[in-house]
């Protein structure tokens, strides 16, 4: 087996040194009846690289990659162009095959990246501090709600109906254990009056902008209403590129920001691994979940970086930790940081403007089709259309014509009658005019 360096001779010599007659002797603590022969596993035997590549390539070929056809799927995961330099750099052995930087003297590479990452996330979200990342946007949102419950010592979390339903379900799964989670009704294309629901038991309101339908939400009045009642505003962003064009959640008064960072540096990967951005006001620092990297100096006075404030974390605080998380999304955070470094201020701003311009042009084009209506008056790179028939079969029919025509809202909220005909469509810098024309033509045919 090509990954195993020991030879049969090596193994014999090592057993002799140990003083064991055979390998079974080393497993002597395992109850006899628990050891099974190889034949107990109905699985294949060792394969060469060529065979494995062939088998997996065959599976990959049965999927339709976003880059292979005109593709307009978003709803929490976005197809963007990732510069070649990003993937090259994250495959450097020193980044790819290192562990958590527990020995800072020989992990300054990872640590400095995290420091840069935290700074970028804080800048982008308009917040004071950011952690070294969480698993993804949805789990970051759940952690934000738990953090708000701890900070306010209040039970109630109010989730906007515009929050991505997968995010809402992720929050409910954990935050109902420590409090009560309620969701406001779904109002496609309209901002619900969430401020009116905030009371003295409310720990936080959770509002996504742009929301799951693509609608841009004004967070300012919600932040004011929340603060007036001693509650916190958690802002959720699923499309990080939007922060290049839109006012940051921090500038609008958010207390905690949970954001999916996939759009910058990371591929679609059928849903993971992604990278959760998590930022907050400085005064909430001690209740933040996850790793933090801090600046310090070494014994010779050189600037360096370490993991810090670890007493919040599970390996020290055990059952009193702020979270059970024990990793971050290291390599995805690295990809994010490199891509954002390449973009810089001007690159990000241009990218964001292109995304908005593309989506705007596509929305105009598609909403001119008879019976199709644009539901979201304000949006970034994603908008929702109301079709004259159910959206799910339309998407399947479009796929049959070689167009991945967005996400039917009913896939995310099957119980919402008013979502049945809604189609969530994203456009990014990767879409061309030809893609638009193909989409328009296919949609016309399917709706005819």
């Amino acid at each position, binding site marked *: 087996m090509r990954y195993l360096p020991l030879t049969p001779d090596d193994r014999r010599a090592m057993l002799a040194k140990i003083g064991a007659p055979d390998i079974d002797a080393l497993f002597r603590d395992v109850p006899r009846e628990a050891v099974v022969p190889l034949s107990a596993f109905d699985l294949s035997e060792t394969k060469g690289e060529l065979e494995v590549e062939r088998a997996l390539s065959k599976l990959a070929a049965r999927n339709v990659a976003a880059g292979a056809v005109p593709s307009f799927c978003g709803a929490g995961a976005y197809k963007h162009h990732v510069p070649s330099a990003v993937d090259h750099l994250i495959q450097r052995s020193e980044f790819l095959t290192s562990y958590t930087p527990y020995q800072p003297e020989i992990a300054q590479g990872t640590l400095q990246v995290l420091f840069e990452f935290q700074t970028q996330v804080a800048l982008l979200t308009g917040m004071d501090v950011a952690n070294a990342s969480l698993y993804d946007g949805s789990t970051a949102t759940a952690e934000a709600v738990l953090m708000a419950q701890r900070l306010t010592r209040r039970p109630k979390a109010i989730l906007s109906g515009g929050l991505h339903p997968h995010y809402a379900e992720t929050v409910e799964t954990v935050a109902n254990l420590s409090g009560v989670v309620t969701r406001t009704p779904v109002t496609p294309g309209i901002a619900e009056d969430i401020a009116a629901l905030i009371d003295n038991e409310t720990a936080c309101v959770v509002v996504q902008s742009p929301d799951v339908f693509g609608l841009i939400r004004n967070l300012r009045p919600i932040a004011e209403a929340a603060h007036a009642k001693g509650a916190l505003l958690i802002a959720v962003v699923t499309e990080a590129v939007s922060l290049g064009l839109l006012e940051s959640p921090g500038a609008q008064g958010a207390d905690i920001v949970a954001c999916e960072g996939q759009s910058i540096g990371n591929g679609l990967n059928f849903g993971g691994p992604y990278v959760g951005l998590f930022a907050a006001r400085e005064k909430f620092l*001690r209740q933040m979940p996850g790793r933090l990297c801090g600046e310090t100096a070494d014994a010779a006075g050189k600037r360096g970086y370490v993991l*810090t404030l*670890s*007493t919040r974390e599970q390996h*020290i*605080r055990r059952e*009193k930790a702020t979270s059970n998380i024990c990793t971050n999304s290291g390599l995805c955070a690295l990809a994010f940081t490199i891509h954002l470094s390449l973009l810089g201020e001007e690159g990000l701003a241009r990218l964001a403007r292109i995304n908005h311009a593309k989506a705007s042009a596509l929305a105009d084009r598609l909403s001119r089709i008879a019976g199709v209506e644009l539901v979201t008056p304000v949006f970034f790179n994603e908008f929702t259309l109301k079709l004259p028939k159910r959206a799910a079969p339309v998407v399947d029919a479009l796929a049959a014509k070689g167009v991945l025509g967005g996400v039917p809202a009913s896939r995310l909220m099957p119980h919402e009658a008013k979502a049945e005909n809604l189609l969530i469509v994203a456009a990014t810098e990767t879409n061309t005019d030809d893609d638009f024309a193909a989409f328009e033509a296919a949609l016309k045919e399917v709706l005819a």
Partner: protein
Amino acid sequence: MSEVRFTDQHEWVRLEGDEATVGITRHAAEQLGDVVFVELPQAGRKVGAGGEAAVVESVKAASEVYAPVGGEVTASNSALEAEPAKVNEDPEGAGWFFKLKLSDKTEFAKLMDAAAYQEFVKGL
């Protein structure tokens, strides 16, 4: 006239009238290492004897500080928030954590005196 007593959780408490000043012992401070953060109780909070009253953290450890005696918190040493190193420099003086208005003096009498605490530490 003041008297100092000690707990088996390594807190010290000094009684003056019915006001008790609480901190962690020199032994505890040495074991903990460089203190980097303390979280102190707010004045007015009521704590029972043995109840969690404060938190003290070094880089690799976090410990609860328990109230050696029950009572109402009257003051906390906010200087520690800016300079947690005081806990290491002068644990049984300037590194005090909080003051309590004692509710039951018999609780104080049950604690170890300095000699008993020294013996207790030796036995660990």
